[in-house]
């Protein structure tokens, strides 16, 4: 029996039970759909974060409290990164790098009758625009060393704050309430965008000492260090380690360069992709069991047909191929529909969140659905091929 013959036969059998075939196929479709979408989200996330990290700049070193990204913000870890430590570090690195300590606090910003209670006030120093890539101003200037030292309350507002509170007015020189103290606006920071639903422009930058004095915050979220050149990077890293080790143990701070950060992040996102893929694979497995089940029913229902075909000259392999192909066609149809729907969904998700369809997940899903058909179709097909023609013909 040639392949065209078999193909026609299987198609006929599938269409003979449309609803049943549709439901069986649906199981596979859902499994494959889930794989494509979840893997797409996983890899979209990874690409996004990677991109985000490399946009920080190639010479950036991040000093964060705790011993790694995993435990930095975990419970029971005490933040030992203080303002004086950062000041000291800045002095020591003055000739090799720009150092910008950051202390964040959630507070409110009020101007006239507009108030937003969910704004991050970021305490930093005048070095911030030098150390951080997206720390430039689009209006006015970042506060200066002089302004910082004189203790005047000055603020640089994020772009969202600007558009929300001032529309087309010039905000420079206006006074806003940050918490319950008045600050004079000296600049507007450039747009840095929204990521994962967090608006990085809904912030105000104020002097570090002001955050300390007003909010009592003396621990830093991070210290951003920008080495003056790529060549200095390893040296600066060593310097930071030497300086901080005098006051802190190795567990109390960690130094992340772009690369180590990327490493950690890709570990996390890979784990995430794998976990998501695993969950999706379970639903595909369930779909496969559905195929096996329906094929077993089909073999039982068609016992007489099998017997007759054998009596008329069908070999074992003819019957095996017939039922196996039927199972593979069911699961492959489901797989292809799942791939198409999954890709569509990924494109739609990409518009709102992050997601990118990867070739390997499509190929994997395709191969998986063929494999599911073969694996779960094999037992019923073997059972069919082993039926004795006499018994099968007698079967009612």
């Amino acid at each position: 029996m040639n392949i065209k013959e078999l193909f026609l036969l299987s198609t006929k059998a599938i269409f003979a039970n449309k609803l049943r075939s549709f439901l069986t196929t649906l199981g596979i479709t859902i499994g494959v759909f889930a794989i494509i979408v979840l893997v797409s989200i996983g890899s979209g996330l990874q690409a996004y974060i990677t991109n985000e990290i490399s946009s920080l700049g190639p010479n950036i070193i991040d000093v964060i409290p705790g011993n790694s990204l995993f435990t930095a913000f975990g419970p029971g870890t005490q933040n030992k990164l203080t303002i004086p430590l950062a000041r000291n570090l800045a002095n020591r690195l003055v000739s090799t790098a720009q150092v910008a300590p950051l202390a964040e606090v959630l507070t409110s910003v009020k101007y006239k009758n507009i108030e937003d209670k969910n704004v991050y006030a970021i305490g930093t120093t005048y070095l911030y625009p030098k150390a951080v890539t997206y720390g430039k101003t689009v209006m006015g200037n970042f506060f200066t060393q002089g302004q910082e030292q004189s203790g005047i309350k000055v603020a640089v507002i994020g772009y969202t704050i600007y558009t929300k509170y001032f529309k087309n007015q010039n905000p420079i020189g206006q006074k806003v309430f940050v918490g319950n103290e008045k600050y004079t606006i000296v600049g507007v920071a450039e747009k840095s965008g929204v990521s994962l639903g967090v608006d990085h422009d809904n912030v105000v930058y104020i002097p570090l000492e002001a955050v300390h004095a007003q909010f009592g915050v003396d621990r830093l979220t991070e210290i951003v260090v920008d080495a003056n050149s790529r060549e200095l990077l390893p040296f600066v890293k060593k310097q930071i380690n030497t300086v901080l080790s005098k006051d802190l143990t190795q567990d109390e701070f960690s130094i992340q360069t772009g690369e180590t950060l990327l490493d950690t992040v890709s570990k996390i996102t890979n784990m995430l992709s794998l976990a998501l893929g695993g969950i999706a694979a379970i639903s595909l497995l369930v779909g496969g069991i559905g195929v096996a089940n329906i094929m077993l029913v089909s073999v039982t229902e068609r016992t007489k047909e099998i017997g007759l075909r054998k009596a008329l000259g069908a070999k074992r392999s003819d019957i095996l191929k017939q039922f196996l192909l039927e199972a593979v066609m069911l699961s492959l149809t489901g797989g292809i529909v799942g791939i198409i729907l999954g890709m569509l969904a990924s494109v739609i998700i990409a518009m709102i969140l992050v997601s990118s369809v990867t070739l390997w997940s499509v190929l994997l899903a395709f191969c998986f659905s063929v494999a599911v058909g073969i694996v779960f179709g094999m037992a019923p097909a073997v059972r069919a091929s082993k039926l004795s023609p006499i018994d099968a013909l007698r079967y009612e």
Partner: protein
Amino acid sequence: MKKSDEIIRMSNISKAYGTGDLETLVLRDIDLVVKKGEFLGITGRSGSGKSTLMHIVGLLDTPTTGKYILNGTDVSKLKEDEQAYQRNREIGFVFQQFNLLPKLSALENVILPAIYAEVDTKQRTEKANQLLSTLGLTEHSEKKPNQMSGGQQQRVAIARALMNDPELILADEPTGNLDTKSGDDVMKILKQLNKEGKTVILITHEHDIAMQAKKLIQLEDGKLVHKENNAIIT
């Protein structure tokens, strides 16, 4: 060539089911020679072993002991797939229950054996149409079995049996599910086929049907007890 005029030569064929104390002999020491062009009737009560004999003759089952030569080939110890090959080419089956596939049209049902013989599509469709026309079924060729009468269905089954041009037609109670008129039609067709040179083996328990065979053998308790040449030849 002596062998060439024999289609079946069975010697010492026996069939047992079960083993040890539970062993039951269904066929005992059957010796049977059927010449080409014969019209042989096999009769016997139910339980006499005629179904088992028919299965062995039709290569649907293998004998426990003995030798069976079908059209010059020793088929006593064939493997399942080899049996399938021989069945496909040497034997045309006509069953009591017609055994047409309900979802296929008459034409598709007739074509089935040719699919397994790997005959090309055009050739086999032509052949099937020709057979259907000979049996007066042209207008029914696109009908499904349940749209046809019993007699028509059995004629489709005969067309199917002839599809691969086998020398042997094995008819197992072919009139058992038919009214007298349709039964007569079927018998006429079988006789006509025999006239055209096919060897026909007819298994039946109905005396008047059996009497239409040229030669008759009777089975009792798994043994061939009686052979006779029929007087009536139509």
